[in-house]
């Protein structure tokens, strides 16, 4: 995972959500088809991809895909 577009592409392909680059900073609740429990899937994928551990409580509290990306990759 090299940039935020990779994360958006992953969520779009794996969950079948209709997303574009503009959705990076939108509140997750505004994304059509997003469910808060999707982070339980996302944490497994992100940890496998980055090889690091991510804090699940912080991931649950992240409000946008950009925030999730920052948490998982940019640390």
């Amino acid at each position, binding site marked *: 995972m090299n940039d935020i577009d990779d994360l958006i592409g992953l969520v779009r392909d794996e969950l*079948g959500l209709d997303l574009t680059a503009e959705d990076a900073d939108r509140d997750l609740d505004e994304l059509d088809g997003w469910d808060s*429990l999707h982070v*339980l899937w996302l944490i497994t994928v992100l940890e496998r991809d980055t090889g690091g551990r991510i804090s699940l409580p912080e991931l649950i509290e992240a409000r946008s895909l950009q925030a999730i990306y920052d948490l998982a990759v940019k640390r």
Partner: protein
Amino acid sequence: MNVDAPAALDELRELIKAGGAARYPEVRPLVAPLSGADLAAAGRLLARLDPEEVLREHPTTAQVQVAITGHGTLSTLVAPLTGQLARHGVLARTRVGDFDGYVFDLSDPAGGIRAGEADLTLCVLDPFVVFDEVPVPWRPQDVEKVLAEKLALISGLAAKFRTGARGTLVLNTLPLPRRFSAQLVDHRSRALLGAVWREANARLLRLGEELSGVAVIDLDPLLAEGVAAYEPRTGVYAKAYLSPELLAEYAREVAHLARNRVGRTKKVLALDLDGTLWGGILGDDGIEGIQVAGTFHGEAFKAVQKVAKQLGSQGVLLAAVSKNDAEAVGQALREHPEMTVREADFVRVTANWQPKHENLARLAKALNLGVDAFVFADDSAFECGLVRRELPDVAVLHLDGDPAEHVDRLLADGWFDVPELTAEDRSRTEKYRDELDRADFLHAFDSIEDYLRELKVTVRLAAAAPADVPRVSQLTLRTNQFNLTTARLQPPDVQALLADPRALVLTIRSADRFGDNGLVGAVFARHEADGVHIDNFVLSCRVFSRGIEQACLAVLLDHARETGAGAVLGTYRPTAKNGIVRELFPRFGFERVDPESADPADPAGSARYRHDLTAPLVRPAHIDLTADLERASA
């Protein structure tokens, strides 16, 4: 297995984006071979499809309504369940209850997730049902006390739920993760905790035996495969008290129950021989050279044979389909001293050099079954690929690789799982073999009338007795062709009809010169002000085309007239498979009546018929018929 999962997922993504619900029929072949993470991914994608939209596009899609309730966070069950059901061509319509809402959801089947209407209600139980209420510090006795309270609560809820719900209630045993047992430092207490915990699980399992309409999934065999029961982070932070991996395995088991409810349980296991049922190649190695016991590989194949025999003893029809010399195969099955499966265990042994899909299609026709009732297992990628391409409705198991692993692969999908066995199941192979003999007998006659006269058919039509309930229910679940309305009835549904004074449930038993066919059909009718209504009529495919349906309808029409009914009314509801009975009513003098109003719950378009009883229906002369419609006093 050689499955290109990434390609299948890409195609699925494309399909959902391009056509969505309209292309739903293409989904099953794509997801059927998937497992593990790939299937989970497919499930997440499919969960985005609106099932109502799929049903609008394809009204005859097999579907189950699943109400999900329990103690922890359970929305994560929807995707794996959707994926597993899609593998069997069944559309999932799920409703998930509120967190920890199971007491409310089960005690009020009409409210919340409307569990009363669901085909399956999953009450997912986890260890925190108990440990959330155990005080700290605790001893095994504290756990025992909470377990007793919860067991009483759950059995009470289950018993009550059955009275207000049409579907099956699915419970599960409680896993005991080490994070609890290891809190007791003395081994004596730890052992005691294990004992009280398992006693509670045993009581839960017995609920499934005591209460019809309740199924209990034992999680222990799933855990024994090496699946974690609990994932601490999702458990603590998201209150998902069973691990995602365990929920995925649980979904697989639930899918087998659901498949049975929609009449899609498989009936035939067709096995290749060389490399599948035994090691080696009979044509090259000879009878002495094939491996069926003793050697390393011989023991692996012996295990496969034992499983085949075990399945066959429970009503699964075993067939051998092999490219081989028929004589050599017959000799091997009869004379090899260490063979576990014998010629008599098979409904038919086909050994020739024809393509296997042709042999399978011919066998299906001879048994009067659809090829979608078949599971075909072969070690050859070529044969599997050919059958998959030519007969996409056959479930194909490619048993490649180490034969020691074949037993698990054969059993992985619970192809033949049913809620309970009936007496019919024990002798099914024999009955179908008689049927194949009858087909040979038929070829010896010039006319069908001569044949029927010589067949000496006897039919006994009688009011159903309580002992008939399991078999009558099973007929509605298994029969897809001669099934007028395809109303699937669980044993409690049949029981309820037996208790209803206006309802008439008639059993059909038949026999002929080749033997007893057993309980082969049922008529479901009820007395109403405007006449006798036939709600359904099912007949096993083994006894088609003998005039049995005419004999039974004739008796019912006479009964209606004798009891003062003004007419007999019936409905035909078309499905993909019951075209054989489309013309049943008009053929026997019923007039089509237009429905008073279009029924929105019935998009497939039913046809309603009425017989005014002015002329009796002739009873076929070749049938020796007895009828006893008086209900045994309750």
